[in-house]
């Protein structure tokens, strides 16, 4: 059993992993950059050590420093979360060399499945359907033209080392291919340090469906059902749900079995996700594998009832999976919204800064995995995700209603957020009818006017401004104060006398 785990991450995922460790009786080591000294993951950890200045290459990407802290604190394992070092096979190897368990797959499996071209070869070997196209990097524009001619246009150029839409180009006609090849390759080189690009047939209006896997170190691998992540803006996921409204038991089983075959063929262990595209005829095509915990893992946790981070840790400790495939049953429906510090009204500009006001939702069926608090300053240095809001309910329709209820309870002041975007999506008839594909959100945003007209300002808002103004200096005694819970109580206590209260000790 691990006694101590170092969490090589920040934000909500660091806190989420820390909570799992605490629940398993494992002590925690946090690391932080100068921008994160007052971050929640530092506050809640057992130990915390500084890495360096805010930029990630000088802090959270410093594998050497992180390993050094793990050694000095005698941590047994490192959980990399997602992003940062989580898909870095060299770092995983360095951990292994230092006899510190990297909570994730072995470096060898990461190397096979982390490169998209390697993964496509593995998919072929595992007999898994994939998009038509090449399984090796393209050597030249001429080779690209040959492959494209063979599979037919439209095609998609992609970076072998890529993700998040970088180094990606849709090409509709042969004459556009050479220039697209050059720009995709140079963009990939800049973003990932490798200009390798490959080409595949473009699936029109696909849905993005992914399968969650867990594999233990005894060769036992199960699928925990699918997530639908088709609501994307510029190839980045915005809202995810489980299960998918279009995946039935049979399709779920077939996709799950294909994903398990791929993982077993590469000797994959721990948690991982196999991403598929689903076309309009519900044919699925292997897209890529993510060799780590996903941002959107909570929706799977809610519908399966399992805790993926607990299981990651237990697998890394060498424990066998505590269940078999036949024990996995999906129940209800879960939706996750990624709450970002960004301004949808202004081209989704990031909106870092101080959170001056925070009212968080709660109650039945609402889970929030958050990394913020009132007064927290969202740093400019990292991904602007503030929180993941997750709603669970017996049906998709009720999960949507519940999420809308929670969004209406949520207030984040001082910075701009995308809360309104989710209201727009969740009220959209196409979304409600599950008529979504990976282009859905971009179309929705293009169709809605960017300068939305505000409804006429109402009397309550004007009255509230007036009262805030009139009581602004109340703390100096220069104006009337606004009564609060305390004043109501004092008034009542004075009036009643304390002996006259009618508190009945019975509790229902």
């Amino acid at each position, binding site marked *: 059993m691990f006694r101590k785990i170092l969490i090589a991450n920040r934000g909500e995922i660091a806190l989420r992993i820390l909570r799992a460790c605490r629940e398993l009786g494992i002590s925690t080591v946090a690391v932080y950059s100068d921008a994160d000294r007052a971050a929640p993951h530092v506050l809640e950890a057992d130990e915390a050590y500084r890495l360096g200045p805010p930029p990630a290459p000088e802090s959270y990407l410093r594998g050497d420093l992180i390993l050094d802290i793990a050694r000095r604190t005698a941590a047994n394992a490192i959980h990399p979360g997602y992003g940062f070092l989580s898909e870095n096979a060299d770092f995983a190897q360095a951990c292994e060399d230092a006899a510190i368990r990297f909570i994730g797959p072995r470096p060898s499996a990461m190397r096979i499945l982390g490169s998209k071209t390697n993964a496509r070869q593995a998919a072929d070997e595992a007999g898994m359907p994939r998009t038509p196209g090449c399984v090796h990097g393209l050597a030249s524009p001429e080779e690209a033209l040959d492959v494209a001619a063979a599979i037919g246009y439209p095609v998609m150029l992609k970076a072998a080392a890529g993700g998040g839409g970088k180094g990606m180009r849709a090409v509709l006609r042969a004459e556009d291919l050479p220039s697209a090849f050059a720009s995709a390759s140079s963009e990939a080189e800049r973003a990932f340090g490798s200009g390798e690009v490959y080409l595949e047939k473009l699936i029109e209006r696909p849905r993005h469906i992914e399968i969650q896997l867990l594999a233990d170190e005894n060769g036992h691998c199960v699928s925990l059902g699918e997530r639908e992540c088709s609501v994307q803006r510029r190839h980045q996921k915005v809202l995810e749900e489980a299960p998918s409204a279009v995946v039935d038991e049979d399709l779920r089983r077939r996709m799950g079995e294909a994903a398990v075959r791929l993982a077993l063929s590469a000797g994959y262990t721990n948690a991982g996700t196999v991403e598929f595209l689903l076309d309009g005829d519900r044919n699925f095509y292997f897209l890529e594998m993510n060799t780590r915990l996903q941002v959107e893992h909570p929706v799977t946790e809610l519908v399966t009832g399992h805790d993926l981070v607990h299981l990651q840790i237990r697998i890394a400790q060498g424990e066998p999976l505590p269940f078999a495939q036949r024990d996995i049953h999906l129940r209800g429906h879960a939706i996750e919204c990624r709450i970002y510090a960004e301004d949808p009204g*202004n*081209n*989704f*500009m*990031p*909106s*870092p*800064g101080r959170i*001056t*006001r925070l*009212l968080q939702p709660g109650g039945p069926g609402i889970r929030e995995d958050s990394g913020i608090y009132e007064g927290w300053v969202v740093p*400019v240095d990292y991904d*602007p995700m503030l929180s993941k809001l997750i709603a669970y309910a017996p049906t998709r329709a009720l999960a949507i209603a519940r999420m809308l209820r929670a*969004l*209406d309870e949520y*207030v984040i*002041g*001082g*910075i701009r957020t995308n*809360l*309104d975007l989710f*209201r727009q999506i969740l009220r959209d008839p196409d979304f409600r009818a599950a008529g979504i594909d990976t282009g859905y959100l971009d179309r929705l945003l293009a169709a809605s006017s960017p*300068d939305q007209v*505000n*409804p*006429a*300002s*109402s*009397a*309550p*808002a*004007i*009255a*509230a*401004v*007036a*009262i*805030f*103004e*009139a009581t602004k200096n109340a703390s100096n005694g220069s104006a*009337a*104060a*606004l*009564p*609060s*819970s305390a*004043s*109501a109580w004092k008034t009542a206590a004075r009036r009643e006398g304390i002996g006259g209260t009618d508190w009945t000790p019975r509790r229902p």
Partner: protein
Amino acid sequence: MTFNLEIDGQIRQVEIDPADPPGQWRIRIDGEEVEADAHLIRPGVMSLIIAGQSHRLVLDAHPTEPALHAGPQRIPYRVEDPRSLRSRRRHAGSASPLPVRASMPGRIVRLLVEKGEVVAAHQGVIVVEAMKMQNELKSPKNGRVAEIRVSPGDTVAAGDILAIID
């Protein structure tokens, strides 16, 4: 207490007096009377009951644009000094100069207008870059560029005045 409130592009005249018991207010909005029952939940968070309707109103202390969260809506507003408004009303037709402010820290990429140029409301004036994204700052009104205070390459802080439109 009387003041003018710019909210949703409209200017409303507001008069407010405390009533009895504490928490009750008589408010006239452009002459129309509203009776409000207000309690503070915590700083900046108000419970307001008007004619039985319950409202949660939250002040958004944004550095450059004060706003109010009313239910799911975020409503920017500006409280005007009564004198400046009176003077503006006197010179009806020629509104007072308004600044173009940086809405977040960043670096000036380029200027889209020159000093003296005539601009329309919402016309792009200055491009600022932050976090590798570019943001076009727009003119707050129809008018003329009276002043440009920055040059490409300058770094600016949130709230800095970058230009004045007359």
